[in-house]
Each structure stands twice: as C-alpha cells, then as structure tokens.
C-alpha cells in the first residue's frame, strides 16, 4: 500500500476537484484502520465511520459471494437526506477510499469522476 503521504496527496487532489467534501479516509479493509484521513468537520468521527464501513464492505462482499456473483465490487454509494457517502474499492482490493460529502453542494457525477481518476494509480 502507498504510504500516508501519497495517500494524503490523493485525498487533497480529490478535495480540490469536488465541492462539499466533509471527510475522506483511506481504510485498510481487513482491520478497518485508517491509512490516511482528513476531515473538515470536527464532529464527524472518521475513525468510527471507517471501522464500520469496513464491515459494510465485507458484508457486501459476502452477499456477492452468497449470490455466486463473479463480478468485482467497485464502489458503493449511500445517499443520506443531506449527505452522500461514497466508498471506492482501491486497486488490489485490500483498502478502500471513503468519502462523505454535503449533498446540496456536491455534484455526484463530478464526485465519482474525481474519485475514479485519482484512485486509479494507488498501488
């Protein structure tokens, strides 16, 4: 996995391209530990969000397995009344990027494009 500095650069690049980002983290899928993180709202507990989202991803993978689906999980979008939460599985599948954004000021298409673009080269 890329080091924290590189991951922070990716997080910053995404933030530069997208309006309304609340918090972003790169999370180790196995342990749910954050490898890099940045939050713009102090009340948003990114550590807790990262941990439980790792369970969410694992559960989704179990569902796919139970359904005998042979495809790969690429991303997950959760729509809240006022927020968008995007989970993007990183190349290699051992980590994911988790991003929370303010729904009213974020364009979903731009968000997805920026995340896909900047996450593609993480090794």
């Amino acid at each position: 996995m890329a080091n924290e500095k590189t991951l922070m650069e990716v997080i910053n690049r995404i933030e530069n391209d997208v309006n309304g980002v609340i918090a972003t983290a790169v999370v180790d899928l196995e342990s749910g530990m954050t490898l890099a993180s940045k939050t713009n709202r102090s009340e948003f507990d990114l550590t807790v969000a990262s941990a439980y989202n790792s369970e969410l991803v694992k559960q989704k993978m179990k569902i796919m397995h139970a359904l005998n689906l042979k495809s790969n999980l690429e991303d997950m979008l959760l729509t809240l009344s006022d927020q968008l939460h995007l989970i993007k599985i990183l190349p290699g599948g051992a980590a994911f990027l988790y991003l929370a954004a303010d729904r009213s000021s974020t364009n979903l298409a731009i968000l997805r494009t920026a995340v896909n673009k900047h996450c593609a080269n993480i090794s």
Partner: protein
Amino acid sequence: MAVLDSQNNAVVIRVVYDGAPMAGKTTSVCALGKGLGAGVYSPAELNGRTLYFDWLDYTGGLFEGHRIRCQIVSAPGQTSLAVRRRQLLESADVVVFVGDSTPRGFDADRAYLGSLCSVLRQLSGPPIGIVLQANKRDLPDAVSISQMRSMLDGMDMKVGVVESVATEGSGIREAFVFAVRLALDRVRELMRTGELKTGKPDIDSAQDLLEEMRRREDGALNLAEESVLSHSRLRDLREPEAAPAPGAEAPVPQVTLASAALEQVVREETATETSVENSTPQAVVSRAHRLNAAGQWIKDNRQPVAPNERVPSGMVWPPIDGRTILQEIGSSQVQLNSSVAGDWFGVVNDRWRIHTPANAVFSSVDQGRPALIQLARAFAANHSDTTERCVVLAEDGHGRYRLWQIQRLAWG
C-alpha cells in the same frame, strides 16, 4: 496481553515500539499520535530521553465485530533501563522495531534485535510478530534495505520491513497498520486455542502501567542480565556462531519435498472436482481450464497475481510469520514463469521461491480452504521451523483463488 473487553465490546492489543537509543521510537509514536489525532503521554523523561515509556491509546477499526483498542507503548532504549524495556516487551502482542538506518545505528540495531528475540523466544503462546520500521531513510548514508534484510537473515529473523522518516511522519502509519494486522493474527490464534483472556484489561491506562512497572522493578533487577538486556558492549550480545559438526553439511532447503506435498494436496483435491466441471463434455477438465466466451473449456494461461501481505486473515499459514514473509514478497518485483505443465513459479530477491501448481486454483475461498488446511497440516507435521516457509490462498487477479507455497531458497 491481548484481552477481549466484553463490557466495552473491544479487543485490546498492545503494540510496543522498541529499538536502540535515538532510533526514533518516541518520534514515531508522536508522529503516529499526530496522524491519529490522539495525544501521547510520557510519564517521565530526562533531556528528551524516555525513562519509562510513551503511551498512546487509540481505538479504531473492527475485529470480529469488536472495536480494536490499541495500547501503543514505546520502550526506553537506554541500556540502564533494560528492566523496563523487558517488562514492556513481555506484554507485547506485536513489536514495531524502529531501526536506525545510519551505519552507526545499524550496529546497534543488530544488538537490540538480538536481545528482542531473546525475550520474545521465552514467551508462551502464539508468536509475537515484529515489524522493522527502517527509520531515517532520508539520510544520504542510510544503509540499504538489502543490507538490513541480510542482517535479519543472519540472525534467522523473519521480520516485515517498512521504510520511514519519522521526523516527516512518512511510513509511520503504514508500519502501524501492518503491526495491528499481525497482532490481530495473534489474537485470532489465541481465540482459536481458547487462550484469549476476557474482561477488563489489567493495565487500562498509562497510570496503571506506570504503577505496575514501579511495583515490579524492585524484585526484577536480575531479569535483564538473564535475558542479555543489560548489555554494555555489543559483542556481549552476539551469540557464538555454532560451528557445524565435523562432517555435517549446511541445511538444504527442502524445496522438492515441500513442492511434492503441495502437489499431493492439489492432486487429492482435484480428485473431487466439482460437478460443474464433471458435467462438461470433456472426460476430464481440470481447474487449470476456464470457459471462454464461446462456452468452451480452454487451458487457462493467464498469469496469476503473486500473493502479498494483504491476503485476509485465515488465508495464510503460519499466520504471523507467513504474513511477514508475504510482506517482503509484496514489496518486491515478482517475475513469474510458467512451466510446460502450467505451474507458475518465481524467485523473489534470490531468497524465496514461490510456486503454485497448475491445478491449485479454486473458484472460491471455500473451495480452496480445505486444501490450504491440509497443506498447512502437512508442513506442520514435517517441519519444525515455520519461519522458512508459508502457504497462502490468494486471489489470482482473475476472480479465482490460488494456493501458493513459498519456500526459503538459501540460508543467509
């Protein structure tokens, strides 16, 4: 010291930062604390030197539905405080050894690694993983990573290596998360064997630890000498090299035997191929085949992705030493070659031979796990030294899983 704290729904692990004096232990823990947004507490220090420990309490991540609470502790490096260092090392679930990459520090690393191993060898339970956080990599005279690996080989140590520059915070989080994974592998082993303690941790705060250390110190001054921690000269720490017995030969890697075991396991598994494959028009279609777009079974020549340390828990054996081996494989360039029979093999860093037979491919983890367990049992029965080999079931990059055997090529 891992404890399952049911009341707080947390598994408590201790990560101990060890290393020679001035290697960067405190700097690393402080950088980690800054990155995690948690404060570091140091009970006492003198002129910037740690006298007891640095303490960082961090809860993050999930393990089997429990929060992961990490008690991150750095040990004092000064030789005069060896008793304290030993106490902390004995409580570790994983050790991050902060190595000094400067030529002078490199010698000290060797000495401290030796004494670290000496302590860990005396502890019961599943092995305690070590991550070598090679620090000060920004210095122009830093020794090369290959030199560090040679040193580790010479000491017969299986250690994951992560490069860092603690003053810049680079590589710190990576080493920590890797260490947590090793600790969780150990916790899983403790759970499996019924040895995982439950309840409130005996040491629940920095103050608890400080009191415990002060209490134990009175009667434990001789322990350091017994465990060669109270060294004053480097040569005191070096164990005499064992001369080979007259006529005895150097140990030879049992690559052929191990490969044979792997192939045997796969053969037995292949004998019970799934009904899907048996239902094809062909009399025998092995797992080395795949369906093409036209629905025909063709030989699968696609190169698999080599395994790395990111395989899920339970998919590598032995769990801790195996993941450490995989960390080196994953951080290296792996050139895989295919044999006529369809096996895939390669040599990594002139140290490891990795191999997967043509038929060691499974459509799911569930199908591959019995073969993994069977092979691990075969290894456990035939080899006492598990630091020189591992078996792993890993995703092959094409949606299937391969059983790999990794074997040490030569003794350093």
